[in-house]
Every structure is written in C-alpha cells, then in structure tokens.
C-alpha cells in the first residue's frame, strides 16, 4: 500500500479520567471515503477536533500529506489541503451564500491584510466562488443571506465552503445531520460524484449513507477503534454487532 494521505498513530486524548481517544490509529488513502461510525459519546467529535487542530492530543501523532501536523495550528492544516465541514451548521449568517464561499476562496488567495479595495466587486474571489456554488447546486441562491437558506441548503453551502480551497481531504462531520430523506439522497449522490477526486473522512450517523458511500469503515466505541474494514467486513463483524449496530437494529 502507498503512503496514506492522512494517518494517525496511537492518538490519545484524556479528559480527566475519561479516555476520549484511546490509542486510535486510522488512515485515509487518497481518493477514498473512509467512514467513522460509533454510538454517541464514542469520541468521534474529539477525534475530529484533533485532526483539525482544535483539540491537542495528549500523545500520538497525526501525519498529513507526508508531514507531521500534530502540533500545527488549524489554519496551517487547511493550507496543506485539509478542509472540514461542521456538524452544527456554521455558515456565516450575515453574509450571502456567495460571500460565504468567496471568503473561503479568499482564505487561499494570499494574505488578507488588504484594507481599501472593495471585495464585493472582486471577481478573482467571486468567480471561483460562483463556480463552487454551481458545483453543489446552490447557484440560484447566491445572493441570499446564508441565514435565510433552508437547513439542507446550509449543509450544501458548508460543503461548497470546504471545497473552495481545493482540499485533498474533506473532513465531513455529519453532513447529513438534520436532512430529510430526499436531501440526504441528493447529498449522497453529490459525495459519490466527488469520490476519487478527493479523499473524505466521513463521520455520519446515517447508516444507509455510510454503507452506500464508504470504501472503508472504522467503528469507534468508548474512544477505541474496535474494528476497521470494508462495509462487508464491518457488517459481518461480531464485536461491531454487539457494540453498536445490533443495539438500534440499524444493520443495513
């Protein structure tokens, strides 16, 4: 196997007596979708926080694109090609959809210590931003304040913002959260179309989506990765059934 795009090596994070991340070693290869599943409280969010740089691990290392990024601040990781979407929708409500994406483009267009030129007519930002909106199918909503978009549209906007920097890896924290069936299906189709071009680490509760999309699945329980493999392997895994899938009868 070639060197993975992202890999963690025995990552540990403790909160007091609670082992939120217990020696987790996972990797994501270029172009693949690796899904991370686990019941509530399994430590998915803590793990994502360490990958993005919002949470400092107690020990272990994170490597991305051939570089140790364990201690790198968030914005430096982003510039290496690691983008994320948020579990709780985090679009910037006071700006329009287009402005949200234009800001994401701006983040990758050199420094922003530019005080005088009006950004609203800046096609070098708005052009690519419009393109990203088209890609996620939001171009008709470009001029609307992000706060006025529907929940599903805001999730799409999240993805458009993450894509604006042309990342090699997308960290998708529950992209389908709160979506209706139809919207979920559209998002699944969209992510499938992205597959191959960008690697994704998908954190998702929707088992349908996970088994449709993922090349590999890792199951996290109490901070530990109890199993990792192809969807078929995970489905057949006894420990996973016991710990997780069987509980809520969600075996697909």
């Amino acid at each position, binding site marked *: 196997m070639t060197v993975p795009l992202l890999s963690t090596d025995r990552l540990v994070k403790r909160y007091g007596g609670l082992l939120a991340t217990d020696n987790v070693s996972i990797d994501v290869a270029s172009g693949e979708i690796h899904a991370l599943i686990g019941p509530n409280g399994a430590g998915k969010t803590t793990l994502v926080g360490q990958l993005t740089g*919002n949470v400092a691990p107690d020990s272990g290392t994170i490597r991305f694109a051939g570089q140790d990024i364990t201690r790198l601040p968030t914005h430096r990781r982003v510039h290496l090609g690691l*983008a994320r979407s948020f579990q709780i929708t985090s679009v910037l409500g*006071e700006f329009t959809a287009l402005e949200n994406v234009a*800001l994401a483009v*701006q*983040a990758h267009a050199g420094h922003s210590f530019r005080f*005088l*030129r009006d950004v609203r007519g800046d096609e070098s930002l708005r052009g690519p931003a419009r393109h990203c909106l088209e890609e996620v199918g939001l171009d008709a909503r470009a001029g609307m304040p992000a706060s006025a978009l529907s929940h599903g549209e805001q999730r799409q906007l999240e993805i458009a913002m993450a894509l604006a*920097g042309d990342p090699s890896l997308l960290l998708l924290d529950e992209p389908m959260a709160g979506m209706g069936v139809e919207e979920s299906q559209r998002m699944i189709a969209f992510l499938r179309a992205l597959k191959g071009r960008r690697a994704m680490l998908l954190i998702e509760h929707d088992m349908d989506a996970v088994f449709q999309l993922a090349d590999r699945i890792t199951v996290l329980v109490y901070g530990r990765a109890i199993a990792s493999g192809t969807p078929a392997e995970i489905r057949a895994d006894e420990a996973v059934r016991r710990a997780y899938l069987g509980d809520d009868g969600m075996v697909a």
Partner: protein
Amino acid sequence: MIAALRTPRGLLTALILLVLAVLPLLTQAFDQRYLLSVGTRIVIWSIAAVSLNMILGYGGLVSFGHAVFFGIGGYAVGILSAHGVSSGWIQWPVALAVATLWAALIGALSLRTRGLYFIMITLAFAQLVYYVGGGLEAYGGDDGLNISRSRFSGLIDLRDKPSFYWLCFAALCGTLWFCGRFANSRFGYVIRGAKSNDLRMMALGFPVFRYRLAAFTISGAFGGLAGILLANEGAYVSPAMMSWVKSGDLIVIVVLGGMGTLLGPLFGAIAFFALEESLPPLLDLLRKGWGEYWQIVFGPLLVLIALYARGGIDSLLGRRAP
C-alpha cells in the same frame, strides 16, 4: 449618489454632514459660540466611537478600555508640550506611534481571551494607565496638566476655534472614509466573519488572531488620534479623560448609534451629546433642580434602545443597502 439621498438614512447623513461641515459659520451667525465647542467634542468623540466600532461593531470584541487611547494620545501631546516640544509635526506622529504600539501590546495579550475575560482585561489595562496617569506628579497627577496647543507654524492655528473644528471635522471624514473602505475590504470581511464564527474562519484557513490584532491596533491608532484632538480641544489633559466611565460612554455611543454600521457611531455621538446637553435644562423647566437627575431619563432611553432597536439609531432608518 443621488439615489442614496432618497432613503431616510441617506438624507439624514447628508444633512448631518452638511451641518457639521458649516457648523462654525452657523454658530457664528447665530452667535452660539458654546455650540461650536459642543460640536467639536461631538466630532472628536465620533472619531473615537468609529474607531471603537471597528473592533466592537465589526469585530464583535467588546473592548471596555477604549478611552485609554484618549489618554495615551492626549498625554503624549501633553508631556511633549510640558518639555517644550510644541511642534505638532513632532507631537502628533509620536502620539500616534505610542497609541499604536500600546494597542498592539494590549491587543497581543488581551486577544488571547474571549468574552467576559476580554472585557475585563481591556478594562484592567485601561485602569492601569489611568492610575499611572494619576501618579505622574510631574505632570499634574490627578489634577491633570494644562498644555499649550500643538503648533503647526504658518499652516493652521489650533487656538482659532473654527480652524480647529474644521481640522477635527477633516479627521472625522478621513476616519469615516477609512472605516467605510475597511468594512468591505478583504480585511474587513475576515474581521466580520470572525465575529459571527471564529472557529469557522479558522477552519477556512484564516489565522484569526493576527487579523484581530491588526484590527485592534488600527482601532487604537484612530483612538489615539481622537486623544490628540481632545487634548488640543481643551488645552488640557487629565486622567479623567481615560476613566472607565469614558470607555463606557464610548460603548454606549456605539451601541446607541448602531454597532457594525459605518455611520452609527456618528449618530450615536450626536444623540448622546444632544441628550446630555438638552435633558438637564429641559428637566429644569419641568421643575427647578430636576436637571441634575437627567440620567434618570437617559438610562431608561438606553434600555428602550437595547430592547426595541437592537441595531441602534441606524436600524430605525430602514434596512441597509446590501
């Protein structure tokens, strides 16, 4: 331009700027010298309020020590003047540099905190300078220091009230111009984005701290400019100009006028001083002696604005153009 005049906001703005531009002529024509000094203070406080708005309104950072820049700008001028350096060409750049450096320093320390802690630490730094100012016995201590106004030989005489007023007005126009450009620049969008969600901005790849520090520093520099002008207005500096009450007044002005709007601080300063000047005599008319308690009316007015007009005076003028 012409179309903008048809909106209430455009009309009011044009009217205010017009009146401010010719205020010395008006006060002369109606023989109301005192009003010119009120006008001068409004203009200077507007500059400070616009500068506070850069971080408070656009950046969402509640700095509770902004009046410290009145003091820094003012004392820099005052101390130089006390040592016989009376040239404005030296005083003003030095004062601006000191205010900028001080802003960078407190910004670097206080921006590591959030929310209530940020409020407390900016207040603490301001109080620190306030007490240092009070302890400077050589420069008047708590009583303050009478200074001679900055000299710009041959160019402008700051002792001439109308000339000084116009200088302040020009400074206000410059500050507003910069703030207007700033708000819609790449930099301004980063600051505004970080106000609504700084984690999001970091996840987009922005080193948010650096941008906030720059904004804080710029804001302090303009605050220092207001301090320079304030010292020259009264030919006097004292610790009182940077007391926490003044910092509070500045926040009130920005909130009253409309946070995160270009002209809100100007509206706020005018309303603030108009109320401060007119409420006492009005209440005295109702009953002699009531004027002393004008804040009993002023306070509830602020509460009403906070409750029913979240965007301040600016929001009462209709929706802003996108």
